[in-house]
């Protein structure tokens, strides 16, 4: 049953290995007859694949660390608040989760325009300043509430500032939360399609998702080519996820609080 969920990825890979223009298969085929890497060769010839990959990489290398910083700061700030205020902060955060993305599509444009960020990497990185999603703040908060008050108090007795407590007490113990948020934020930013569609004009700034859309419009029925592009877009998040998979599946809630793998 779990293998069923691997099917999409298998189909994607096997589809990308089909020679272009091959007649439809007779019956179910796992691998196409005479599989070929031809689609992967054609792809960079047809479209500026390397530019797209580079742009996507730039976006995630900026957005992921910012997300981690903003989310962990926010959560640590909430952790320091007295419980009553903390609850209010959590509720507000949850309320933000309910605001539909559609509600901010157009009007966000005006905001970006005001600060001159339209058609730059800015709008793609910007969500990181709001922690990408409030959910990540909650992940950190879960991790930080596992931190006993006594540890913070002991630190204060030593004269540590809140900043030092965050850096030297809280963050080292929340390493797994950081890993989790980084992995999740990576796949979100890597896949960000709508912001790119709305706020990016120049083809030189196209990220991979937008590029794939262009490819789909140009070659709507060249499936081996489209599958090859899909595989290329999928490999990085899958690789990042596989690196961190221990964390997600051994005992997620405990490992976020535990601090050790």
């Amino acid at each position: 049953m779990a293998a069923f969920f691997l099917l999409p990825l298998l189909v994607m890979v096997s589809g990308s290995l089909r020679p272009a223009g091959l007649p439809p298969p007779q019956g179910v085929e796992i691998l196409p007859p005479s599989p070929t890497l031809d689609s992967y060769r054609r792809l960079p010839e047809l479209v500026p694949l390397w530019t797209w990959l580079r742009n996507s990489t730039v976006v995630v290398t900026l957005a992921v660390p910012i997300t981690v910083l903003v989310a962990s700061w926010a959560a640590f700030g909430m952790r320091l608040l007295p419980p009553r205020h903390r609850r209010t902060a959590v509720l507000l955060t949850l309320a933000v989760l309910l605001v539909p993305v559609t509600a901010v599509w157009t009007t966000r444009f005006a905001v970006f325009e005001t600060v001159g960020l339209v058609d730059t990497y800015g709008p793609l990185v910007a969500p990181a300043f709001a922690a990408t999603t409030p959910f990540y703040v909650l992940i950190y908060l879960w991790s930080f509430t596992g931190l006993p008050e006594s540890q913070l108090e002991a630190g204060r007795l030593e004269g540590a500032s809140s900043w030092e407590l965050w850096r030297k007490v809280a963050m080292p113990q929340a390493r797994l939360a950081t890993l989790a948020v980084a992995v999740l934020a990576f796949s979100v930013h890597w896949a960000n399609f709508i912001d790119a569609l709305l706020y990016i004009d120049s083809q030189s700034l196209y990220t991979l998702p937008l590029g794939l859309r262009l490819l789909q419009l140009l070659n709507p029925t060249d499936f081996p080519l489209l599958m090859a592009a899909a595989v290329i877009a999928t490999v990085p998040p899958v690789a990042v996820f596989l690196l961190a998979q221990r964390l997600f599946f051994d005992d997620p809630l405990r490992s976020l609080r535990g601090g050790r793998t």
Partner: protein
Amino acid sequence: MRPRRHAICAIAALLVATGSLASCGGSDDGDGDALRFVLFGDPTETAGYEDLVTAFERANPDVDVTLSPVAEQDDLLAKLTTQFASGRPPDVFLINYRNYGQFASRGVLAPVQLYLDKSEAIAENDFAAAALEAFRFDGSELTCLPQNVSSLVTYYNVDLFEQAGVPLPHAGWTWDDFLAAAQALTHDGQYGVGTEASLIRVAPFVWSAGGDVVDDPDAPTTLTLDSGAAREGLDFFLDLQTVHHVAPPEREEQSQDSEARFLSGGLGMYLNSRKSVPTLRTIDDFRWDVAPLPVAPGGESATILHGDAYCMAAAGQQADAWRFIEFANSRQGQTILARSGRTVPSRMDVARSAAFLRPDVAPASAEVFIEVQPSIRAVPHTATWSRVEKEADQILEALFYGRVDREEGIDLLVRTTAPLFAEPGQ
């Protein structure tokens, strides 16, 4: 207090980091002085415009142009809408005549008429009349300056015709010739004719039969495809698939679209505008050519305009924008673009030149694009026209592939679109 200072420094550093992206990422538009030019097109097409911009900048060193291509028309509209809404429209943009109405009707475009009248480099009568006509939003004043004057034609596989012993398409051929050829070419997984099912494909058939797609081309209030000559044209078009089966059924079309099918030699005729030519030129295992659309029995020859024009935003840098448009539509400018083979130049002198006709490469009968010009007609270009088309196309597709009953579908087509002609707020 220490923690706060640290935190603020870090934030500031981050803001600076992303802020500097604004200037390093956005090529050279950081100062806001560069002329912003938005267009849609695939990478090969965009390359032509890049050459054009380079040539313009060489001739006008004082003006910088930023080129922002988007993939297709829907995306272009989205882009333009957000940019106009944010108060920072592009100075120049390229747009199809079926879509500029929604901008023109809101008065956000600077009409080119005055500039053209004063221009010493170009004149109105340099351009194809059919193209100019579609861009007079109020019927008299020229709103945007047409860049090309393409139209719907028949591409055909010469080898397949000869193998089947069918006479080649020629000017003045009729629907009967067309259908007979399509039938002769349909066998063994091969199809006679491929086309998308949309209002702009149906329209020339309707016109040829003597009907019209709307009640009043200048102030349309409803589609009129449900009766009379218009209905004959629509029926002929739909019958190709549902009755004669000379067009690929839906599952075939979804698996391999008509252009790909034509490229692979599995399609006898393919209806499209000039836009297919660069792709078709990659064919090297059979001969192909181009012909006008067939004519209805007892009808007149008709085809539909596929034309784009340069428009200027009223809020943009009009003077520089015009200089660019003027250059792009000079003999030199249009010649650069003609090289891509993708457009039919709106300048008649360039269209008749070797830059466009290219006797060395297919299609051999490139002059067809010029000869059909007297029969070019246009659909309306009102504010809500693109919305009407979007909805109509969905239903036409269902009709073409026999998903809905013909009578019900046509009734639905008219009923669904009627309120859109007078959509509020438009």
